[in-house]
């Protein structure tokens, strides 16, 4: 048996012995464990799985052992991921720090920063949130205004961030801040800073959405002191790091999506419940037309899933996948929106409930998910931005020249 085969056999055996049955398969959103100082477990199995994986240093299996990682080779890590997938093990914890900031710290952080920041991540002790967007910097991220002013041994941060997921429950934030107002290109005056959410002057307020309460927060900074060793990478060099971070966002989101399927409602199944066919009676023309629309939508979802598969196969065959990768977020979010529109059509007033006992839990969940689907085509790069990126980077269509179209 080759070394890798041995590793696979051992890993499989360990996972089978240590991953509790109840933590295999997709979880409802509320059932996921978020690592951090306030980590909460809904049951003993969750705690066991968390502690066992932590103690095996497998929260970050491929990170160097020096920072608490598992020290696995890329090949071993791939095997571990395959085995986790085979058993459908849920991630023992969810943590933006590991998925997004971590890889950037490994690449750009100082040794001191790696020691100080990565180790607690690999122990699941710190919950991280992201501070990028601002009210005036949505699609145009470079427009951020939250300032970090040099005050000798520390920065003083003022301003606000928006759309920070779980800002109210996180321990630390990685944030883009403006450290130079004078640069000609606004991208050039931006730095990447990490900061303690418990520090004085930081306030996180959850945002109400059209779908009701949300995990998104608005975060306000009022003269927050941040010591200078929390600057990641060069001063005014944050834009490059931010772009790198956002590259990790997609894979993070897909990992997240794989295990938490809070909004997966199967269109055709639900359609069947609300558009029942009567024995012997022909369906009404309007039901048939709706069913045809639903079929088209569900088949489009099928085409999307095949495309996910194809992208993986192309990547493994070392073929260029940039053209496919660029469509994924756009397609998925737009398809979800369309799916819910059809569901709402089919469910009539049953999909229009807000709260109360008059509607089933599933019905209320569908209403919320429908409204939330409108968030998906905006957050994380709006559909418009996705289309711009496809047009320019994939299709190589020209920019509008200066002094251009009238």
């Amino acid at each position: 048996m080759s070394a890798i085969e041995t590793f696979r056999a051992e890993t499989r055996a360990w996972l089978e012995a240590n991953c509790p049955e109840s933590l295999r398969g997709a979880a409802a959103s509320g059932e996921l464990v978020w690592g951090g100082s306030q980590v909460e477990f809904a049951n003993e199995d969750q705690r066991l799985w968390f502690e066992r994986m932590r103690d095996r240093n497998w929260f970050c299996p491929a990170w160097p052992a020096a920072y608490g990682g598992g020290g696995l080779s890329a090949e071993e890590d791939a095997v571990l991921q395959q085995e986790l997938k085979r058993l459908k093990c849920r991630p023992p914890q969810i943590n933006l720090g590991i998925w997004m900031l971590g890889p950037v710290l490994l690449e750009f952080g100082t040794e001191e920063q790696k020691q100080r920041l990565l180790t607690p991540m690999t122990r699941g002790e710190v919950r991280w949130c992201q501070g990028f967007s601002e009210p005036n910097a949505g699609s145009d991220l470079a427009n951020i205004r939250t300032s970090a002013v040099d005050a000798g041994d520390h920065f003083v941060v003022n301003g606000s961030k928006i759309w920070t997921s779980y800002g109210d429950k996180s321990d630390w934030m990685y944030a883009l801040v403006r450290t130079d107002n004078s640069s000609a290109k606004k991208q050039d005056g931006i730095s990447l800073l990490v900061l303690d959410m418990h520090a004085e002057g930081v306030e996180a307020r959850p945002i109400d959405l059209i779908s009701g309460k949300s995990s998104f927060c608005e975060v306000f900074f009022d003269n927050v002191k941040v010591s200078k060793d929390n600057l990641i990478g060069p001063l005014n060099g944050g834009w490059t790091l931010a772009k790198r971070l956002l590259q990790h966002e997609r894979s993070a989101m897909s990992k997240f999506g794989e295990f938490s399927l809070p909004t997966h409602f199967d269109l055709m199944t639900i359609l069947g419940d609300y558009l029942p066919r009567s024995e012997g009676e022909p369906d009404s023309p309007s039901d048939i037309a709706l069913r045809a629309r639903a079929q088209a939508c569900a088949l489009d979802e099928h085409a999307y899933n095949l495309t996910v598969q194809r992208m993986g196969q192309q990547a493994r065959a070392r073929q260029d996948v940039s053209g496919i990768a660029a469509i994924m977020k756009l397609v998925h979010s737009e398809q979800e929106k369309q799916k819910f529109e059809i569901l709402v059509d089919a469910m009539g007033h049953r999909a229009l409930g807000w709260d109360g006992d008059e509607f089933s839990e599933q019905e209320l969940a569908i209403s919320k998910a429908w409204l939330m689907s409108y968030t998906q085509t905006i957050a994380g790069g709006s559909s418009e931005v996705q289309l711009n990126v496809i047009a320019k980077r994939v299709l190589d269509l020209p920019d509008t020249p200066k002094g251009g179209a009238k």
Partner: protein
Amino acid sequence: MNLIYNEEQRMLLDTAQEFFAERSPVSALRALRDRKDELGFEPELWQEMTELGWTAIPFPENLGGLAFGYKGMGTVFESAGRHLSASPLLSSVVLCGSILEQGGSAAQQKSWLAELIAGSKRLALAVDEGVRHNPQQIELSAVRTDTGFQLDGQKVIVVDGFQADGWIVAARTGQAADAISLFIVPAGTAGVEQSRQNLIDSRNTARLTFTHVQVAPEQLIGELDQGALILESALDRGRACIAAELQGACEELFKTTLEYLRTRVQFDVPIGSFQALQHRAAWMHVDIELARSCLMAALDAIDSGDAQTAQLVSLAKWKVGQMADKVSSEAVQMHGGIGVTDELDVGLYFKRIRVLQALLGDADYHLNRAAPLLEEA
């Protein structure tokens, strides 16, 4: 076919716009929602609307009305739509009022219709039973007894039905497909249970359960088994008014969206200068104009007693509904992140629009119902 408002109607439109803008702006709906108001509208506002004579608009003068027709009614509904102003005008006056006007006995008209117009009583129409609107599938039964009728069954999505002073109930009284009869059931009648259905638009909607409910013969409206035609005609008036409310809401939402496009700056330019958004906005304008024409045709058909009124009303409900789907979705998307927050009014418009789109028949339903229009050509 007259597809524009005349001068009198335009004056009424201006009055209604001003009234709702001042007395019932979107913040009023927000306040009702935030305090979880069960009635879903402000009784004082309703009283003022009554005093302005709007509850009398569609009725003939001999019944205490102003005989100002459904174009007149349309002006009020589109103005209410612009400001998301809540009132029982649709349920009590348009739907129940029409039924009493067309089918009510002199006594019923004297007691109930006069009170509806005065605003001293409110009725709500109980017609739907299933997931989607379908007045051809009524199963709630009214069975003859020694003293009158007994009602058993259930109604859902009764607009303004919670805490109404009574309901007009569409009941099956025979085997034939259209053997439907209409009954007035006053609030407090034994065996009627009401529960509030809280919808996304924060308005008043109720489920009603009827268990061995006894009603007297004089509570029957019109002839036994002959209620379907009266019902359908009232529903068409209601659908046209809903279309007007939708049109108003969408035009206002579109206005807000255009303003946002002109002022919101990203990448150093107003986002309204991006051609992709410009073209999408232009298509919204196209749909709004086409829908407006259908709405006006429906209102005019009702007023002139056009033989194709039902089809023209369905055309309007379909086209305005399709437009509203698009305008409301695009409005949210074009507002970006802020558009999905509760802070902006955009979401309130979105939710109300989507409920109106489903009420009394969605696009699929009315597409089929409008189809006979195409055979004449």
